[in-house]
């Protein structure tokens, strides 16, 4: 499956047919720091993503002093 990462935008290929949770663990991404987007919907960490699907892990952090 394809995973789209942002800032800067890039794509990585990981094994599919697994729960989002497992993909996040492999990429060492904390669930609290991203939205998991598939198409125009959000998916929760327990959902399984098929090998032919793409998900975007969009960082939610905005920074600096505001």
């Amino acid at each position, binding site marked *: 499956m394809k995973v789209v990462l*942002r*800032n800067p935008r890039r794509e990585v290929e990981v094994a599919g047919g697994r729960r989002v949770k497992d993909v996040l663990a492999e990429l060492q991404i*904390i*669930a*609290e*720091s*991203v*939205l998991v*987007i598939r198409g125009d*919907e*959000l*998916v*929760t*960490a*327990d*959902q399984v993503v098929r090998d032919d699907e793409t998900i975007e892990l*969009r*960082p*939610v*952090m*905005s*920074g*600096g*002093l*505001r």
Partner: protein
Amino acid sequence: MKCRKCGERASIELRRHNAAFCAPDFLDFFRRQVREAIRKHRMFEADEAVLVAVSGGKDSLALWDVLIDEGSRTTGLYLDLGIFDYSVESKAKCERFAAARGVPLIVSTVAEEVGAPVPVIKEVTRRPPCSGCGLSKRYLMNRVALEHGFPVVATGHNLDDEAATLFGSVMHWQTDALPRQSPALAATHPKLVRRVKPLYRLSERETAAFAFLRKIDYIVEECPFAKGATSIAHKEILNRMEEASPGAKHNFLFGFLDKARPAFERAEAVTLNECARCGQVTTGTLCAFCKLADQVKRLGGGLRPSSDGRRAP
């Protein structure tokens, strides 16, 4: 995972609330939290005109979206910081949002007000960019609100922002900063407007989810100066604690607000004067903004190219 409300498949899990929601029920939850914040801290009355400070990011546009739907009388304020493409794009997002919703937007430009854009201010002052930027933002928000007769300015600060600021203040025991950290700051001088943060009960992930589900076109790319800001480092630390123990950020911030903040409120108030130059409120004779503008003028800031060789916009 199922929605706590309706039992349909959930879109988002909120571990600190031990809940998951489908998209429509999450949007409801979100709006309820904003209403609760406004009510609890008496942020503004239904008929008051609210100036909403928008950056083009998810938080401030989500806030504006909620307030518009709640029927509040809002006007947006975009501060053009002059930070390369980031400012160009974020301004366009705010303008499009305002046009699509049919709400007014005021644009104020730091380069005009201070004499140079943020990247040049950074070079002239030799201080971190966020320092001159933050100072200018706070100053201009207040002044624009006063000039246009708004009693209150609302900003998009979320739970993570507030927890990270608190963490920073506590790490350095900045006891003068602690009483000033609040979801609502009353106007303590005729020339200060009330400042409120209606998203303080919602985490950064929740505001991002709201903006995404509402199809708000916000700027995902960061301000180039945000990288390496200490507040980001603090947010990362807090997120690791959150991962290990859901609710950690919430308990840290809310515990402070309920139990600790009152202890830090100073008995004697500081004396507030009006700046000899611009008339805005300061504790000295000349306000920090006017001093900054002087420094920029003295060092010929406006003309200098910025560090990456490009002329600042």
